[in-house]
């Protein structure tokens, strides 16, 4: 099929504007960018459906003259879903404003903490760095008990009665 010049240009322009707004830190602008991207995508799908024609309703036109109904069905639900998601983001903007008087996507502090993390979890620590009672039994790196214990030296003592009670 032959593409038009106009529709790709409109689609490209809307995408460019939408992406620019999407990369902003202000949530309002992100949402506006999202709306532009939504419109752009709808037009892209529509234009991929083929050239313009008559409405796909029997009785108004013959099936050969109709535009492709499938992209239309896809776009129709997309329009309504875009509305639902926009309402959700608006509620988020409101919430963010109410709590911290800001509506920006800040830097994720949790990610920064992970990046700066120096110590590891106790569950992964080297046994030598743990209290003796937290070491797994039979850990064999330490024979550091005082000499002269003629009964022999254990690796690491299990705390008494750790079995069940």
């Amino acid at each position: 099929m032959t593409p038009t010049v106009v529709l790709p240009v409109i689609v490209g322009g809307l995408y460019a504007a939408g992406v620019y707004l999407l990369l902003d830190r202000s949530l309002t602008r992100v949402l506006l960018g999202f709306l532009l991207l939504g419109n752009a995508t709808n037009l892209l799908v529509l234009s991929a459906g083929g050239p313009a024609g008559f409405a796909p309703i029997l009785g108004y036109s013959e099936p050969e003259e109709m535009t492709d109904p499938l992209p239309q069905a896809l776009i129709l639900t997309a329009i309504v879903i875009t509305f639902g998601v926009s309402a959700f983001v608006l509620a988020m903007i409101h919430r963010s404003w109410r709590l911290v008087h800001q509506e920006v996507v800040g830097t994720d502090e949790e990610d920064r903490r992970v990046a700066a993390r120096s110590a590891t979890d106790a569950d992964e620590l080297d046994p030598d760095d743990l209290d003796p009672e937290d070491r797994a039994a039979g850990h064999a790196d330490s024979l550091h008990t005082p000499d002269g214990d003629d009964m022999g030296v254990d690796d690491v003592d299990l705390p008494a009665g750790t079995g069940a009670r």
Partner: protein
Amino acid sequence: MLFLLFLHLLAGLLAPVFVRWWGRQAFLVLALVPAAGLVWTLAQLGTVLGGDDVTETVPWIPALDLDVALRLDALALTFAALVTGVGALVFVYCARYFAADDEGLGRFAGTLTAFAGSMLGLVLADDLLLLYVFWELTTVFSFLLIGGSGRRLAARRAASQALILTTAGGLAMLVGLIMIGQASGSFLLSEVVADPGTGSGMVAGTLLVLAGAVTKSAMVPFHFWLPAAMEAPTPVSAYLHAAAMVKAGIYLVARLAPGFADVPGWRPVVLGLGLATMLVGGYRSLRQNDLKLLLAFGTVSQLGFLLVLVGAGSRELAAAGLAMTIAHALFKSTLFLTVGVVDHATGTRDLRKLSGLGRRLPVLAAVGLLAGASMAGVPPLFGFVGKEAAFTALWEGGLASRTAAAFELTGLVLGSLLTAAYTLRFVWGAFARKRGVPDTVPAHPPGALFLTAPVVLALAGLVAGPASPLLEPVVGDYAETLPLLAPEYEELGLWHGVQPALALTAVTLLGGAALFAARAPLNRLQRRVAVGASADEGYWNVVQGIDRLSVLVTGTTQRGSLPAYLGTILVVVLALPGWILLTRAPWPGEWRAWDTPVQAMVGVVVITAALLALRIRQRLSAVLVVGVTGYGSAVLFVLQGAPDLALTQFLVETLTLVVFVLVLRKLPKDITERHRPRERAFRGVIAVAVGAFMAAVGAVALSARTATPVSVDYPEEAFEFGGGKNIVNVTLVDIRAWDTLGEISLLVVAATGVASLVFLRGRTGGVERITSSALAARRRRSGRAPRDRWLAATAILDPARRSVVLEVITRILFHTITVFSLYLLFSGHNEPGGGFAGGLVAGLALVLRYLAGGRYELGEAAPVAPGLLLGTGLLFAGGTGVAGLLLGAEVLQTAILETDVPVLGHIKLVTSLFFDIGVYLIVVGLALDVLRSLGAELDRQEDEDDPIELNPGEVVVR
């Protein structure tokens, strides 16, 4: 056999209930389950010895050719009897070991029962993949049993260590099993062993399977998880880590040996690792002071011994190995249970603190002594029988290479010598009176039931020695599957006369005694030659290294900035699909300017509005120009021939604007600019590139379309099967109804999300309604009657905020609009419209009421909870699908009912109408929920000067 597995599963599920009802006595009931397994297993003895295997096959996943294939032969019978017999006794023991109020006892009971079932399934499985499933189940249950409540760090670490090591081996084994299955052309274990196939794939698969067996059975260098697993309660150690789970590797090697012992690499791995493990375990065992740890290292040592015997691949050694497996299960469980009783009675397991316990608990001491004697190989106990059979076999043949046999024999004798030494250390440590240590007084001496399990097991070991010829049929039945290397096969028996093996036994016993006598210098020596490194240390270093690496990778890639992430994604889009677009895509050969010139005019408006949106800092203006692009799109839809889309787009755009305004009234007028010029330039470059890319995609997509569209038959199908003329609507409610069902569910989620974000708690219920008394009071005060007649609740409004013109218009239009929305809904099947458009129109009617009369007016207009609308809508849509199923059609299939009714004439009812009603209700519910949250609730918060809703103690970081 399957019923036994189901019995375990059922008992495992019910175990927590039993424990709640009967406390620790529940274990006595649960013991009946493995006991039933034992009875059934022994009842099959005659059949199995008669040469017939008991098999059972149930199709499981036919598509994958996966069956639940179970098979009981002599080997499986031996292991099944051990698993169920020891299991039943351990359950009885549990009934006294635990206190009634122990935390998590119900969970423990369930897990232990489930483990018993998985282990039984493992030894019965005749399918490679089924075997793997049970194999991993035992790993998981072992993890749960070691970890216990998860409160203790050491237990958690031991549990995860065991899990990581055994699943790593298990995954290698899975790959190996699949390779073996491919090589031999069958996944049935019995067929694979009979004909293992050939080729390098089979060799590699065999080595991978051995990796699984070696980790599971705690061979060097993976032996360290077993001592660490001693964090588990003693019954678990006795069952899982002595009799059952660690024997899984031994079982697998024994099972595969008849077919795979001659595979290159098998004997070096099995014989080498087995021997090394036996020596390392024995050596380490000699320096333990904790009785349980001493036994744990002893178990490691014995597992190495067993692996050598069952993996050697000769008839005489296999028989010795199977006998030794039985002996080990009997004596090692007994010893663990004995330690449990000691621990229970005295509160310690430290052999430096225990003294003189033998005289105070004579029965226990006798049990420990018997089991210990069996472990050391003292006649006439069963351990002696097994060990002597092994020595004889190696002396007279056993391995094809005489050098290897001599080497192994020397190693095994040395290992047995260590065994005798640590056995003496154990018996002495637990029961002897020691100089300088005060006598230990048991706080609560064990009762009869507590001692039942160790006594029975110890006596079994005693009786089995002289009675060993009775076991010969079973052991021999398995051993016959392997080639005999020695001149003649020597049957199991207590007395074979004076022969070299007897002398070797004497050497091990005397040497062990000497080693024990010299324990003090020996320990000093051990300390002197100790090296700083150990396998355990290596494990933790590897784990820590992986942890550091993951932190490094996460920290490098996750910078915490949303624009950075989005930018990365977009750059990747440009780099990969963009490159393909440039190099591979079929560029259109010819272009048209437009479908109609109007498109170009609209395009100019849309692009201008979009560019304006980039620079405008005032929020409301920015929203309005973005709205222009939306309306522009709607016009383009009209031009393209899509009236349904245009209608929906117009309605949604209007609704979006209203909702934006509702929120923006709470925000500052302007958007603060937060980006440096360089950032903006970078964003601009990405944006322009993405725009160009997407424009190219649009053009290429159209020129690439050469096949017939899937929708070419839609018009005919829509009328024929869907009974409608509006093809888009029929597509939504019939042809692609599944899609629509998913999408309206998403709308329900979005509506719920909006309400949750605004209300935070108590978001159910409808819009707040005005009470009649408040209205009456207000009327009295205002004193001007006629003005409040137009709408139901406007009287409550401040006169300055009222607009009578709007009230009048609303009064006139509201019902008309509502009727129109219903018209769109019902006519949508044949004309433009449908559930989406109708619902949006109804939503706009509600907007009108809200704008004219405030939040109480909204409550009067829609006195219904939005959640109810959303739920009913989903019920309608889903119910249509189910109804189709009930009527014998496909899910969501449309039925057309036509009838002539007097007065009304010809009526045609299409069932997909009910689906569309569901869509309608959900869209109305969404609009109402958004208005209620972002409209009415925000008003209420302002009216009542409601601060941020916080729970007491909640802190908000500003």
